[in-house]
């Protein structure tokens, strides 16, 4: 690879694991943007990062950008010289202003005629200068969720900066970040190889740091973490396996520079605790991996990933075992305390928990969810109503348990386990856990009928409540995860094939809010419906529907989500056909005319005189009769085909018939005919929204 090579590394105190990936991505993008704009260009950029360093290498830069010739246009050529060909004041002034002689002026042809001009050469900038000027801002501007100051407090960064390595083609790029001056030196592992290392090129960066016990590639550290935990667990005892946990691999990999795993064990007496609790206690407090046998059954072992290879890893293992014992003791304490009273008795405790200052206590939230769930059960599964109501009462009771206080991620799971131990009906226990599903977009959905109903009710209540008191998501912020919950409702409805009126459900939820509602219900209803429309559009387009197709369908109505989705599918199908474009143009014409002159009803068929309008009426009447049956049967594809079959009649109508007839009665009746046509199309979609 030719061209200049750049290596930059910022050494800092330990950067939070979750901050690393977005910062490295920004580093890559911003350097690329800088190089393209400079314009030094680049052939390849690579980023590396550990808790103690953010680094970027770039290859194939221009060490000096090419000179740029810029043309400055002056007065018209005709005004520049007099009849004798002598330069006028205009030409002289322009030349002087540009610092050139009159004879250096050139002539250029523009759209407005011939003009005088100057060609100026702007020398390209040196990469060294551009980088020295731009890197400080680029580095200090990297995005972190939280930044800080230190020492005298001049500089803000994620953590205190200790060194900056910045070398272009073997030469230091001179700049400062606060007190720290750039140099050509990096540092190795804090404990294993703490000395300075000279780095001259990006090519040697990874290898030199590896020798200094630092694995700078995030991807390689992840691989190493996987290999290390597998190794230590296999060495400990035959038949043991690490419970796969990619989220933990990613987090742990960004907490270390040199992953070294050890496998420890804990007292088998703890195995009486629920598996979820053991796994979570290890994972969330200690970032330890759980261990199973070959059949996937949990075993009393764990794998801990360290940042260093100590003189005696056995001593480190003992330390981890002691910490975990205390953690598991704590978990056991909470779990046994939680079992001292029935889960149901905690409903009363929810009266002391504020759900939201504007929306009352958790008890009030549960009461509203319960009512909405009961209403849904009556519609969808009346037999299950008693179970649904019970599950609704219990679904938030685990929020006041010790286990969930310690491990919030075990909400729902803890409720299910405690309900099982209280001998609540199996459907109720299961629903308590399932009502939180899906926990992320595309995640597992509730499956049990009681869980499905409760999940819908809980989410709709939350959404209606938040909108009802003005807590709707704005721009990038969605603190109550309402978008995810609305998408969850949509996924569940589609998954279950439930037919229900979204508007009706919103009304029911809003009614349940009673005096908590701080805004007019009609306004909130419209906002929530629109919110769902956008979520549904997002869902359908992410499933492959075109944006204009989804918009055309959803701009009409989406009260029945299932039907709306079916209409989009049907439209997408017909959109793929070769003759669709013409068809859409014809329909648009109809809709546009109706919009322009206004809808007219009723149609007087006997007043139609011209053949083409009678033909259209005839075809329309036949289609409309069948279309209604098809709409009822949700055969939207068939309906669209039927509409498509009208194209010849529509075309002939427009070719031969003048809508804007001088006779107002005739004009009105023709508009009425087109209104009928538009109404038929509107069974499926607003065709004017389709780009043709």
């Amino acid at each position, binding site marked *: 690879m030719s061209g200049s090579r750049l290596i930059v590394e910022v050494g800092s105190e330990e950067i939070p694991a979750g901050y690393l990936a977005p910062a490295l991505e920004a580093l890559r993008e911003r350097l690329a943007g800088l190089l393209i704009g400079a314009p030094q260009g680049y052939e390849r950029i690579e980023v590396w990062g550990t808790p103690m360093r953010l680094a970027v290498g770039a290859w194939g830069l221009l060490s000096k950008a090419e000179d740029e010739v810029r043309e400055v246009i002056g007065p018209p050529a005709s005004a520049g010289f007099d009849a004798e060909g002598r330069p006028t004041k205009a030409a002289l002034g322009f030349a002087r202003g540009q610092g050139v002689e009159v004879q250096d002026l050139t002539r250029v042809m523009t759209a407005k005629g011939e003009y005088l001009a100057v060609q100026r050469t702007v020398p390209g900038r040196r990469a060294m200068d551009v980088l020295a000027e731009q890197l400080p801002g680029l580095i200090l501007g990297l995005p972190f969720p939280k930044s*800080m*100051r*230190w020492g005298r407090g001049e500089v803000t960064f994620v953590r205190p900066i200790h060194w900056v390595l910045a070398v272009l083609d073997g030469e230091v790029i001179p700049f400062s970040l606060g007190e720290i001056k750039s140099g050509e030196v990096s540092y190795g592992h804090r404990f294993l190889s703490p000395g300075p290392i000279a780095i001259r090129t990006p090519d040697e960066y990874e290898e030199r740091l590896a020798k200094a016990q630092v694995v700078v590639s995030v991807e390689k550290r992840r691989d190493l973490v996987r290999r290390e935990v597998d190794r230590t667990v296999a060495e400990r005892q035959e038949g043991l396996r690490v419970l796969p946990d990619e989220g933990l691999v990613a987090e742990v990999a960004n907490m270390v520079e040199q992953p070294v795993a050890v496998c420890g064990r804990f007292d088998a007496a703890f195995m009486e605790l629920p598996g979820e609790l053991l796994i979570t206690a290890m994972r969330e407090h200690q970032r330890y991996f759980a261990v199973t046998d070959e059949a996937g059954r949990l075993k009393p072992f764990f794998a801990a990933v360290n940042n*260093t290879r*100590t003189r005696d890893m056995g001593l*480190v293992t003992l*330390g981890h075992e002691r*910490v975990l014992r205390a953690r598991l003791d704590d978990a056991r304490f909470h779990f046994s305390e939680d079992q001292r009273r029935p889960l149901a008795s905690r409903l009363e405790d929810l009266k002391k928990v504020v759900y939201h200052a504007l929306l009352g206590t958790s008890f009030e939230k549960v009461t509203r969810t319960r009512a909405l769930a009961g209403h849904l059960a009556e519609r969808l599964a009346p037999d299950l109503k008693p179970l649904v109501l019970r599950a609704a009462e219990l679904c938030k009771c685990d929020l006041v348990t010790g286990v969930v206080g310690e491990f919030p991620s075990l909400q729902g799971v803890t409720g299910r386990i405690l309900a099982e131990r209280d001998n609540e009906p199996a459907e109720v226990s299961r629903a308590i856990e399932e009502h939180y599903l899906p926990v992320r977009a595309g995640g597992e959905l509730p499956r049990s009928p009681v869980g499905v109903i409760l999940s819908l009710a809980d989410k709709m209540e939350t959404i209606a409540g938040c909108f009802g008191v003005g807590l709707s998501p704005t721009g990038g912020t969605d603190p109550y995860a309402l978008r995810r919950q609305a998408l969850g409702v949509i996924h569940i409805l589609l998954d279950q094939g439930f037919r229900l009126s979204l508007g009706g459900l919103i009304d029911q939820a809003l009614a349940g809010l009673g005096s908590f509602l701080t805004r007019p219900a009609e306004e909130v209803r419209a906002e929530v419906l629109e919110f769902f429309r956008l979520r549904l559009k997002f869902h359908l387009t992410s499933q492959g529907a075109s944006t204009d197709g989804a918009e055309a369908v959803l701009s009409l109505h989406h009260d029945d989500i299932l039907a709306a989705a079916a209409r989009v599918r049907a439209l997408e199908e017909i959109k793929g056909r070769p003759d669709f474009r013409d068809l859409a143009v014809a329909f648009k014409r109809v809709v546009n005319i109706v919009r322009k002159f206004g809808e007219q009803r009723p149609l007087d068929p006997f007043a139609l005189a011209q053949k083409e309008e009678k033909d259209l009426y005839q075809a329309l009447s036949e289609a409309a009769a069948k279309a209604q049956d098809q709409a009822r049967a949700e055969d939207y594809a068939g309906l669209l085909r039927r509409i498509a079959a009208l194209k010849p009649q529509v075309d002939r109508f427009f070719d031969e018939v003048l809508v804007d007839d001088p006779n107002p009665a005739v004009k009105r009746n023709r508009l009425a005919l087109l209104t009928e046509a538009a109404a038929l199309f509107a069974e499926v979609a607003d065709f004017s929204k389709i780009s043709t």
Partner: protein
Amino acid sequence: MTASKSLTFQELILRLHEYWAAQGCVIQQPYDIEVGAGTFHPATLLRALGPEPWRVAYVEPSRRPTDGRYGENPMRTQHFYQYQVLLKPSPLDIQDRYLDSLKSFGLDPLDHDVRFVEDDWESPTLGAWGLGWQVWLDGMEITQFTYFQQAGGVELAPISVEITYGLERLSMYLQNVDNMFDLAWNEHVTYGDVHHQGEVEHSIYNFEQADVSMLLTMFDLAEAESRRLVEKGLVLPAYEFCLKCSHLFNLLDARGAISVTERTRFIARVRNLARAVALAYVKQREDLGHPLLGRWGGSS
């Protein structure tokens, strides 16, 4: 754990005193008012304000009434000790200095996995927050390490670094015991001999006996007094009454006497006091001409 195994609880404190004294710290003494953490000591919270340099280390008995377990939990108590260090401005090599302090009582990073794990700190009652880590020793949290960004609602410059060692945790590790009451305080007496009875009695008091209406009255009185004193420019007495409010609030909380909505209001009341004191302190130091500027060989 070799030689360090025999280090008693009090020896650990002595080692820390010795180490941080050598770093130029003022070895101050615990504050004689109940506080929830070493941060509340005016040697930390107030000294962190303003431009003057400061270096201090002290033990702070810390009270968290809700953490009482009647002396039955091996690791959780309503009274425990923190070893608190504050360096202002934060030196760039502070992590190394901290690691050296571990070596001074026998914990060598070549023998243990010592790690700085993200943990940000915030005290809503003090209007203070900072960024930093908890320090893990083979997975055990032994220290809280924080760069203060704000205190008493006031932006800080220069920045102080606060290092808080959990003395019982650390000592349990060094002595290899699993119950803090079994710690050897010295060769003759255990931690339990010194503190167990207090844990039992205070737990009973905090959870069962504390007179709620008396505490509420005391809170109102202390709040009014703090306000009155701050207006008179008596910054330190005003701060003491602010601290009393904070502890009274904690007692009321342990007693379950504060509903959730009231809770936020109580916290805001204490924070308002802390803020008034912080602003008054900043002004007072200014009026005094920042007498500590230039100490510790600082350039200013």
